[in-house]
């Protein structure tokens, strides 16, 4: 189908976008368009005004610092996937981004667009939770930072007001030598994951787990950080038995259910994927991780 008629607005800087946004009714921001345009074509969404952020150069770019990385909201998913500098510091981005849609959608799709759309199975939301993201949203007269823990208000509902623009996101970077893994199970490559798992693992000099971080996607309204499992793993000797126990622990929580997939199946996938993901992260940490 074709979208209902709307007025298109091309803006070239952020202040122009926020000023316009403050003065219009029934308006949406257009970033990569890989979720919004399908919804408009199917007429799930009908807007009077569309503000195109694509020409706003200041919203694009990857800035790598010592312990964190900032990405502009309009940074293309392709750009993140292709960044060798980022892959050297945080290789999980490349592994996770390969699961986001297909070549053609990653060429247009953006980081901010995915975070604002907030699909329950969004890999980028998973990375945001895993890497303690802070999201900067701007309005015409101010901006504010939102911690990822406060960002998810409900199903596909981020903490962004109608007059605000998601401007950038800051992710933590882990020290050199950490292990990483991102994997998911979907019916076909490129489909939304039934369950996805991301893990990061840092080993101490004595070979024990110094620090672990785990996240699930596809199982709830937003990404689920497994803080209980992370606490359980800390200080332990990494063994197959430990990772199996972590998988079982991860699966002991309520999970979403839909017409095709039962909660029990999601729990089963979770236990298997968490165990395998931790084993792979551990292997990579032992090999010197990303160093």
């Amino acid at each position, binding site marked *: *189908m*074709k*979208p*209902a*008629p*709307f*007025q*298109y607005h*091309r803006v070239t800087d952020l202040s122009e976008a926020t000023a316009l946004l403050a003065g219009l009714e029934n308006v949406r921001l*257009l970033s990569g*368009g*890989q979720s919004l*345009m*399908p919804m408009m*074509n*199917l007429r799930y969404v009908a807007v009077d005004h*569309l503000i*195109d952020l*694509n020409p706003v150069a200041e919203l694009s770019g990857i800035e790598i610092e010592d312990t964190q990385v900032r990405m502009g909201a309009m940074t293309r998913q*392709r750009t993140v996937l292709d960044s060798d500098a980022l892959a050297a510091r945080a290789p999980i981005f490349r592994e996770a981004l390969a699961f986001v*849609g*297909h*070549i*053609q*959608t990653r*060429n*247009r799709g953006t980081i901010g667009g995915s975070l604002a759309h907030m699909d329950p199975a969004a890999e980028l939301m998973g990375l945001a939770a895993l890497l303690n993201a802070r999201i900067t949203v701007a309005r015409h007269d101010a901006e504010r930072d939102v911690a990822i823990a406060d960002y998810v208000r409900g199903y596909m509902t981020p903490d962004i007001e109608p007059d605000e623009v998601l401007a950038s996101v800051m992710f933590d970077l882990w020290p050199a030598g950490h292990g990483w893994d991102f994997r998911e199970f979907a019916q*076909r*490559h*490129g489909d939304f994951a039934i369950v996805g798992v991301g893990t990061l693992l840092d080993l101490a000099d004595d070979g024990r787990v110094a620090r672990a971080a785990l996240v699930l996607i596809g199982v709830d309204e937003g990404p689920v950080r497994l803080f209980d499992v992370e606490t359980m793993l800390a200080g332990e000797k990494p063994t197959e038995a430990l990772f199996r126990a972590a998988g079982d622990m991860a699966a002991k929580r309520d999970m979403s259910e839909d017409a095709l997939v039962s909660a029990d199946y999601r729990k089963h996938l979770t236990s298997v994927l968490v165990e395998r993901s931790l084993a792979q992260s551990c292997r990579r940490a032992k090999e010197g991780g990303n160093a």
Partner: protein
Amino acid sequence: MPEHHPPGREISLRVNGRAYTATVEDRFSLADFLRQNLGLTGTHLGCEHGVCGACTVLVDGHAVRGCLMLAVQAEGSEVLTVEGLADTDGNLNPLQQAFMDHHGLQCGFCTPGILMTLTVYLRDHPDCDETDLREALSGNICRCTGYETIVQAALSVVRAQRNEVSE
């Protein structure tokens, strides 16, 4: 602007090397613009929500969904469609010829999108293998071939490119 005229504007862009200036409705997708305004009906629309890949075209050298990009967003861009692959005498390019030789199409509906996806993928990944190609093709749905002959056609182009390099 009277209310019954849907919002639109004039855009200028290059398609298959030729410059166009045209007036288009704001809500028109790039694929609809190519088909209806420029008469380039080689770009096909299947699902119109970004799943099937039939509408894939190249914008500034990158494969994109023609149904998920607005025509007005292509202002100033260089677009390549399936019509731009063969030479001006109508001789098929090596990828198109490989599809013909390997029966890489049956009904042909998905073919333009697949050709455009592979055009840029083979350019950027000259050393790709069968696994890479199958993943690269995951964003294009073909309901006739089962993909086997498409992959065979693409692999034959990879082999030919390699031989050219080694010669």
